[in-house]
């Protein structure tokens, strides 16, 4: 079982996340079409294509640089509310990871909690508003509890909480963003940002499980 990743393995984990987010863009687009205008999948794919390019070409001196590059790539290519929010998650999540070379459960907890704080300051969403915060907040809380566990164990538990959070958005009426104007019509559908957040965490977990399978240098 993987207990932690090196900096380069972390980079490869996010390359795996990027590749798989791009691959499910139609699914994300459908989730958005149900309660938004359907551009979320295209936007996420555009953002993670930029992430892929940056991670393949750049060199990084710490987790903070890696997360910042991911955040700025999303912020500057996605556009829309989701670009600002997902970009802020990664940028904000880098706050306490300066020069860190190992990605373990404690660093994961910093990433999720600092990221959550930055997202909430930027977007003003609380739990229950039918946003990605409904996934990120429970994931961040579990990450603190699991901070001493091997990375694979904590990501498994975080994913359970994240999926529960995503499911919970189906029962919520949107109060922020474009979906709020749908009112009751948004009931029964998960929030697209919550779906994406859940998949990012899932692909991080899947990458860690398969870490041995990742070729040493795909660049």
């Amino acid at each position, binding site marked *: 079982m993987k207990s932690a990743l090196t900096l380069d393995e972390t980079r490869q984990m996010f390359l795996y996340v990027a590749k798989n987010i791009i691959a499910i863009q139609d699914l994300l687009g459908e989730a958005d079409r149900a309660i938004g*205008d359907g551009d979320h999948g295209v936007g996420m794919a555009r953002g993670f294509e930029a992430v892929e390019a940056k991670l393949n070409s750049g060199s990084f001196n710490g987790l903070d640089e890696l997360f910042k590059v991911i955040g700025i790539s999303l912020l*500057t290519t996605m556009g829309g509310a989701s*670009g600002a929010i997902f970009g802020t998650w990664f940028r904000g999540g880098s706050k306490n990871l300066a020069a860190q070379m190992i990605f373990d459960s404690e660093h994961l907890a910093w990433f999720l909690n600092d990221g959550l704080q930055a997202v909430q300051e930027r977007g003003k969403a609380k739990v229950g508003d039918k946003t990605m915060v409904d996934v990120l907040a429970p994931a961040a809380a579990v990450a603190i509890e699991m901070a001493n566990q091997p990375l694979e164990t904590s990501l498994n538990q975080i994913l359970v909480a994240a999926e529960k959070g995503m499911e919970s958005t189906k029962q919520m009426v949107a109060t922020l963003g*474009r979906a709020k104007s*749908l009112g009751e019509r948004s009931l029964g559908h998960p929030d697209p940002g919550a779906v994406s957040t859940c998949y990012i965490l899932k692909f991080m977990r899947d990458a860690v499980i398969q870490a041995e399978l990742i070729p040493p240098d795909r660049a």
Partner: protein
Amino acid sequence: MKKGKKFLNSSKQIVSETLDGLVFAYGGKVHRLGSANVIVLNQMRPGKVGLLVGGGSGHEPLFPGFVGKNLASGAVAGNIFAAPTPDQILLATKAVNCGQGVLYLYGNYAGDNLNFDLGAEMAADEGIETKTVRIWDDVASAPLDCITDRRGIAGDVFVIKVAGGVAAEVGDLDEVYRVTCKARDNTRSMGVAAAAGTFPETGLPTFDLPDDEIEIGLGLHGEQGVSRSKLLPADVVTDQMLERILSDLPYVEGDEVCLLINNLGSTTMTELLIINRRVHEVLNQSGITIHDTLIGAFCTSQEMAGFSISLMKLDDELKKYYDMPVESFALVKGAIS
């Protein structure tokens, strides 16, 4: 599902190619900032407040078509229906800043608010002062006591026209902000949809509406409106929309207004003129004077069928700035006397 049929090249190049086409249409009066999705005036007067408009693409000619003489100094375009990114907002801010600061003017949507706020923070880091006016003219999108939750739709045109006028005359950001807020606060709009446009990147409709139904108040991106019904005669729909618009500000006997009948994409001029006829009849009966009428496609949502009605109530100050001559891709108008 029926897919839209569109003349496009690469789906990734839609915004870029649209802006290039727009720059050519301007015949040398504007330029693009490199490969950024930003259009700015070639000639900017020192000492002038920069007026930066922007928002998601796909609503052409909004916003980049309103860069021009006595209108916006620059526009920043996002991807289709998605707010522009903060780095591009910063680039545009620097390009339109002539030393007196920059007014951001855009429709009130979560994505635009987040990204323009990020852009404003980055501009402040570089010593550029900005102020923001968010346009929230759509009366169907939230009750009056939650006016700051309302969306910006075609009323943008009136607010940009006044803001452009005052920015051309007054080199003070606070003053440009004050008058622009007044224009926004006197503007109300409402739309009706008969059919969805399609998302150019996927060809899929932006919302689902049965073939024989219309929805009053439906937003530019399919946001829920106030009522759905079978297709109704033009006068009935117009009366329903005017009732809500007029009672909201309210616009009353003795008021003087500007009127905009906006085509959301594929509604015919035939229909728009029939609607305009009815609006004039109703306003005349209500004792409201129409100072100026604009009819056309100013704020669209691809090939969405439908129209919106916007009114801006004038006072002497708003009238002075509204009446200034303008020259842009979307709007060319001599001085109104």
